[in-house]
């Protein structure tokens, strides 16, 4: 099925590192180890191929090329070795999709109760896509949506359905 509201692409080469720590205490160490500034609450910081996502008051997610995940995990673990912290390579845990196009937000509005269109340029929101959990942040003109790997096919089906031709949300 051709998509009309947005182009849906599964992103297969994203690596992800989960970080749990006291973000105030460990902020500088994390920033140094990731090479990225610490994101504010509900925000992301992106530099090149790396994005650091704020996930909760004590959790970050570093998104980066998959090939770099192992090394980044080790670097973070080393940087936080004196902290009470948890660093895990979770690259295999998630399915990720790019939703791109002028009406990308409309496709997401069919699935997510959160007001994604209102999200700022560096915003991230963890919410629900139909019946599964997801996280969404802006990338370029569109969005990246991550969910659990096991339901990747379901999420893909949802997104393609939401982007069907003729289903624009513009008033008619």
């Amino acid at each position, binding site marked *: 099925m051709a998509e009309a509201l947005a182009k849906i692409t599964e992103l297969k080469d994203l690596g992800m590192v989960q970080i749990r720590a006291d973000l105030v205490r460990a902020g500088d160490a994390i920033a140094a180890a990731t090479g990225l500034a610490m994101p504010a609450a509900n925000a992301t910081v992106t530099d090149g191929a790396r994005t650091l996502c704020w996930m909760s008051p004590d959790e970050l997610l570093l998104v980066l090329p998959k090939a770099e995940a192992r090394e980044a995990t080790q670097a973070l673990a080393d940087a936080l070795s004196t902290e009470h912290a948890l660093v895990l390579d979770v690259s295999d845990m998630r399915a990720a999709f790019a939703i791109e196009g002028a009406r990308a937000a409309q496709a997401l509005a069919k699935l997510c109760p959160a007001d994604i269109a209102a999200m700022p340029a560096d915003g991230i929101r963890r919410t629900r896509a139909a019946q599964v959990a997801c996280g969404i942040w802006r990338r370029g003109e569109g969005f990246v949506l991550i969910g659990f790997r096991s339901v990747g096919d379901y999420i893909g089906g949802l997104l393609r*359905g939401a982007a069907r031709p*003729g289903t624009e949300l513009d008033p008619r």
Partner: protein
Amino acid sequence: MSDNGPFRLSRGGRLIDRAYQLPFRFDGRQMRGVQGDTIASALLANGQLMMGRSFKYHRPRGPVASGAEEPNALLGLGQGGRFEPNQRATTTPLVGGMVTTSQNCWPSLNFDIGAVNNKLYRFLPAGFYYKTFIHPRPAWKHLFEPIIRRSAGLGKAPTEGDLDTYEQAYGHADLVVVGGGIAGLTAALEAGRTGKTVTLLEQTPQFGGRTPTDHADGQARIDALLAELHALPNVTLRRNTMATGLYDHGYLIAREALADHDPNAGIPRQRLWRIRAGHVVVASGALERPLSFAGNDVPGVILASAVRDFVDLYGVAPGRNLVVVTNNDDAYRTALTALDAGLAVAAVIDARPTAQGALPEAVRARGVRVLTGSAVAGIKGGQAVEGVKLCAHSGSGDVTEVIAADCVAMSGGWSPVVHLWSHCGGKLSWSEDRAMFYPDLARPPTGADGAAMATPLGAAAGDLTVAEVTGAVAEQPLLPVWVMPVNATRKMKFKMWLDFQNDVKVSDVELAAQEGYQSVEHTKRYTTLGMATDQGKVSNINGLAVLSKALNQPIPATGTTTFRPPYTPLTLGTIGAEARGELFQPLRKTDIHGWHESNGAFFEPVGHWRRPYCYPKAGESHHDAVAREIRAVRASVGTLDASTLGKIIVKGPDAGKFLDMMYTGLMSTLPVGKCRYGLICNENGFLVDDGVAARLSEDTWLVHTTTGGADRMHAHMEDWLQCEWWDWKVYTANVTEQWSQVAVVGPKARVLLERLGGTIDLSAEALPFMGWAEGEIAGIPARIFRISFSGELSFEVAVPAKRGREFWEKLHEAGRDLGITPYGTEAMHIMRAEKGFIMIGDETDGTVIPQDLGMSWAISKKKPDYIGKRAQERSFMSSPERWKLVGLESVDGRVLPDGVYAVAEGSNANGQRNTQGRVTSTYMSPTLNRPIAMGLVLHGPNRMGEVLEFPVQGAETYKARIVDPVFYDKEGSRANG
């Protein structure tokens, strides 16, 4: 007469385009309408006034209204997978090629056998069925109820699945305006100018509401508003979108018709909007009320506003010679509209003593008879209006004159549409002089902040003419008329309809009051008033006015019934939306899922996962496949996709202390590099999950849960960590999906894994039973756990999830000569039962504690506390009378039925047979070639060798001997190999 139908006027019809003719069928007859018609207007244009039969008496029914409140004109629409019963003809746009059928009549609309009920009306008053069909007792079930059920229902049931699709969308707006009439548009514009995000929802295909029809320059006013609104980027105007319900915290549900009844559109038929509104303006207008006079249900008796709409909007004449019956000025507009369209108006019958407003005077000026102080005593005609019998309104119905007419336009005044206001708790006030319930601004529906979440506006607020923006002429007060004439006889009231669809009459409501069904809810339920598919939009106010009079109390003392969503019926397909077929629910797949599929796996659902139950070969039964799989594992080597098992990392200085609270056993003492089996109970003491924990490092454990328990146990841990022991330094992470896990099981398991090469020493010395190691295997990073749920030599290999299939295929490649066999969940279940291992969900059911299962070895005596410990000390849980786990050995070689109970002597005080145990797991063991079972039995472990009886209806009683639950390899030597 035109070729657009015999009752199509030669001019007029603001919504139609005569150039586009649309053929359609009604009850098999070919008809033609035009672009812009509703089904109802097209049928009327074709002279088809009768459109259905009523529910109870099967009386002939034509349209009463022109919009969503229509109770009568309900049709079956479409065919096959697109058939829909009870479609409202007045709101369904006509589409070329539509197939429509009348309902609730047999054999035909004109001649309906069910109409015999009509003749029996005297015997079928409200609630008659509560008073009869009582004796003889079986007659109700076998005779009376089947008859009642067969005669009930309106449309035919669809028989097929739905060929259309539906979707949903979430919306957000500072302000949602419900209603695209002049009040709503004005409110949207005012709010839009302040920069607020505004969404306006209009149920019909047109904006403007009644204004263009009712006011001279109405359309121009609407057009001007629309022009300004379209220029505001922060305002969204949606047509064809029905706000069906307002829920707590400003949650508004609306249905947008996208391609209703147009199967060729190739897009979803409807979209359900779920809009979170900062505030809601309810500008939903008002609905006209019928008048209760004898014969008011005859086809051709139509609301005055509807007559006006049919003429003005669709260029259709519901009749050629009208009588208008009214208690207010507004209905005079209908006379004027009819006259302008070239129709005759025989008279206006006005119940008021005088009628001297601008509108009545305008009608008089056109030479129409205006009879004040008058009323309708009855209608001549059965299937259509032939004449109107007049009487004095103040009298008891003595006929003074009969006027020939083919259509009666009636108006009993207007009721604000307060549904959305009321759905979420908004209260109403009664206006005596305006004879209406209107929103009480002092008692609004309140939102999350406790403030009003809705504001009524325009006619919905009781301001019927919205003169401020419409420039409407002043109107004289109406005269409340609930029964016409005032002193109508009891017999006349048997002919005065309140609820046209459900055949509820004035006499029925009075009977309810007489019998003590005095609450308005009692009356509604006793008579079925307002319970038809129009939900009482045209009948409720008249009904409760009649009830109030019968109870001799003011109308507000009677009150209204509760307004419940939806405002108009909402297609269930729209509510289900995309969640059908593949997207019905998320289907969780392991990385190896595709391999299972292409290798013939038969799956079983486990939560949202699909797990291979077994892998039957061609021509092989599931039972045989399972047996083959087990034998292969016990003889050589098999593989199980264990990826679905929960995996939770628990890390931190307090992780050991925390796990000691989570598990009944000690986890803090587990050495690094080792695994330990543990049980998790809930605070109520019951066993809820089990699994193996591995200590990864000094401060890190990896905890395995059951497949179904992963998310639940993770949430359980986070609950205690966040809400009770928040000062403990522990982080958890649910990494279930990060790993693919494969159980490599059987005497050849080590041989096989060693062939794959890698950095992990798999020897018994380096990696003993209940040990784990980390490294690489087959070029893939891996953790290997020496744990066994089958009793065999077993390695559970965890690799990064997305390399799971690669690893699995390498195993199968390398193990081909060993006869490597994939096995499923059933083989796993049986093998664990052969070993006497419990299974969460089999031996446990939410009422079982570890002590019941002989698992005291897994409960630490040293620990002062763990979740569930205190609960297990309660008298019933520590009682020696609890049923305990044992093995059960079938005496006659038959497999015991699963779940069957062992009987004890005698019966209890309620006459139920006493029991002393039940079977929790039971299989034919392919390994032992005999039945095995486990069960919970009173004093079981102390009764080894005793034989229990398990009676089963229709079969010889099963007997089984109490034995040790470990049936296979009691010494445990195989797993240690």
